[in-house]
């Protein structure tokens, strides 16, 4: 996949380079660092509540049980229904945010890349700088504003807010992409008679597909994992998204650690799978779109 062949690899054929060994050790340690907490999460989630609070802890669950997963995912019982509800809500909010993010961000990035309108630098940096503001600070004013717009306790308030989280990075990424696509391609299309918009749609968009996919992934994952705003804007139990639902659920009986771990695991699965499957595009987009010098 990489265009350059790392020089070190060729040298390594003659003897084991200390750097290569060091690198391998580091990778191994990092792998353990990354994976072990998740492994423990999994192990805890299949223990019984009693087994989980043993000291010293059971390294391998003696009597593994899937009761927590069953409880969370089965529509037959109340807990399961609630949890599935949270799951669906998260899916809806994340998908809507992603789709809207693409629809709104792509034209904007294109404009920032191609057009020479006045104030474009200022606006571009304003969009980026938004990233700097601590999310929590806007909670109260935004809540009042949502109330004024009649959006309290609706998913629309979240989708609107999440759009502003994802837009800066999306626009920045995509702009980088568009900067890399030679304008001559569009000009060729326009010479052939296509309007500017059509040229954009038929020539440029397909080429920026990796960037769009990266944007979509980023938006989705951000919306899926977001916590503070969902906590404040949503009251109704039936509307909660997973992160908030997870927390609410378990402050009420904070000692059900296996249940908490099981819920955390279930919550992580969609985004991890999504990301692993599509990581190629994400990395490619970051490479081509973000790295300039």
């Amino acid at each position, binding site marked *: 996949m990489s265009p350059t062949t790392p020089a070190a690899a060729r040298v390594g054929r003659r003897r084991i380079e200390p750097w290569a060994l060091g690198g391998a050790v580091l990778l191994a340690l990092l792998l353990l660092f990354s994976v072990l907490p998740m492994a423990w999460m999994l192990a805890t989630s299949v223990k*019984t509540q*009693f087994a989980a609070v043993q000291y010293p802890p059971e390294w391998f669950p003696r009597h593994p049980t899937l009761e927590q997963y069953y409880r969370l995912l089965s529509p037959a019982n109340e807990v399961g229904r609630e949890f599935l509800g949270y799951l669906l809500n998260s899916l809806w909010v994340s998908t809507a945010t992603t789709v809207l993010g693409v629809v709104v961000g792509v034209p904007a990035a294109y404009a920032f890349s191609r057009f020479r309108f006045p104030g474009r630098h200022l606006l571009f940096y304003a969009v980026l700088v938004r990233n700097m503001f601590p999310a929590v600070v806007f909670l109260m004013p935004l809540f009042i504003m949502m109330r004024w717009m009649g959006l309290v*306790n609706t998913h629309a308030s979240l989708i609107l807010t999440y759009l502003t989280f994802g837009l800066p990075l999306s626009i920045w990424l995509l702009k980088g992409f568009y900067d890399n696509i030679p304008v001559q391609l569009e000009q060729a299309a326009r010479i052939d008679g296509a309007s500017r918009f059509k040229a954009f749609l038929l020539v440029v968009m397909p080429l920026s597909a990796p960037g769009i996919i990266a944007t979509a992934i980023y938006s989705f994952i951000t919306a899926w994992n977001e916590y503070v705003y969902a906590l404040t804007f949503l009251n109704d139990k039936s509307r909660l998204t997973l992160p908030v639902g997870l927390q*609410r659920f378990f*402050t009420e009986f904070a000692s059900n650690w296996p249940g908490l771990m099981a819920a955390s695991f279930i919550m992580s699965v969609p985004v991890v799978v999504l990301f692993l499957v599509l990581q190629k595009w994400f990395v490619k987009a970051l490479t081509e779109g973000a790295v300039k010098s």
Partner: protein
Amino acid sequence: MSHSGGHSEMDRRTFLAGAAGAAVAGLAGQALAQGSKTGIDAATWTPQHIASIAGTAEYDTAAECAKIVPLNHSGRLTYWYFGPTQASPQIEHELDAQFWDAFGKLYPNIKVTKQNLSYNEMLDKLRTAALGKAAPMVARLPILWGVEFAAKGQLREFGPPDVGYTADEFWPGALKSVTWKGKTYGVPTNNETMALIWNAGLFRDAGLDPESPPATWDDVVAYSRRIKEKTGKNGYGMVARVNAGNTPFRFMPQLWAYGGGALDEAEAAPTYKTIYVNNTGSRAALQASYDMYVRDKSVPISALTNTQVENQDPFIAGNLGMMIAHPAEYAVMVERARKATGDDRKTADAVVSNMRYGLMPKGTARRAVVFGGSNAHVFRPDLVDGGLDLGAAKAIIAFATGPEWSTKMAWVGSNPGNLRGFRTKWMKQRLEQIKFLNVTTSMLPYGIPFPVLPQSAEIMNIVIPNMMQNALTKKMTVAEATDDAAKKIKDLLGDL
């Protein structure tokens, strides 16, 4: 409908004079002075008396409600409360369902939208909702919370007469908690006090008398240490988490028992103007906690982040000696034991059979417990999401605070706010079914409500736990921590 079956008219009148702020000279004895907070004399409100009045009266809920709001009233109702959670025993879920079912049958034309929120998040949500004009019509709030909304002018004036009841049907302490600047802003639904729970088996293993609880708080410290030394298990289930209601409910009785407090709320006629948190009594109380956490290490290390729920697992696993909890805790433990399997089941069952309830420990000054409970409030019409349907609000409150349902809804964890409830057949049933109910109800006269001020929530949930943490982490000495808390309370009361 007098509730004061065994009391003399003299006591009642004397109490009323006291409650009006007049001097309480002439009331003799500590118990009586404490009893004046609730209008009931601790000496006569004994388990025997409670048993004797139970099941002696019948009330017709439908008729009483119909007098206030016709049964065919048509409208809508929005209602927020903190109801049964995953940690609640099954019977609470059942009764909650029955409540709404019965209300629906009584008033079929009122469309009900209810929200069951968790204790720790309800306050923030309600504050934001009221601010954003998205409040519910009626909210059933813990006893500490109503005054904040009343002080902000966000509640509609509403009292027992609005639903056809009289003031003497409720605990005076409860009524005090719904009064702000002389006006009434709610109706008590239920009241409870906590008790000390211990594991007789662990006591036995530690060489302590399994059937008697520590009599004083100093004894609690000593017992805790003994249990840790002899059995290696933690003694007292301390709770010192910031921003959690559990903490003040367990620590304030300690403060009050030693003669301290946040303000003068434990005194017979409190003015809520004098700061007590750094007096000798308060310091002694904090020192006791310090001794347990730092010196003896006889309490869970995670006490600083624990809520009461995190004491339940160790307790049922036989790893915790004592804790302060609700009357409901027994039912919770029984259910937990039911869910256990294999070896765990044996341990759990043993714990359940060893579970004992006793009175809250005494201190040098008094025996005290937090007078807890809930009240039903009505929000100001212009703040309510969609406007206020007064008829529906009156209907639900009349229904919920009447003797029948205030008893049923308080089944596992509390007691009827409406004192007539103590005479119903359901009370009798409860006394028969619920182990230790006689102990917890007899604590009621020792109940002290938190200061009835809007700043109370912050004092109790933030300043006091922070004071505990400052001392327990040794960031400050006990004296410094209490002085720091005193300064914060002074600032709070002065300006914000």
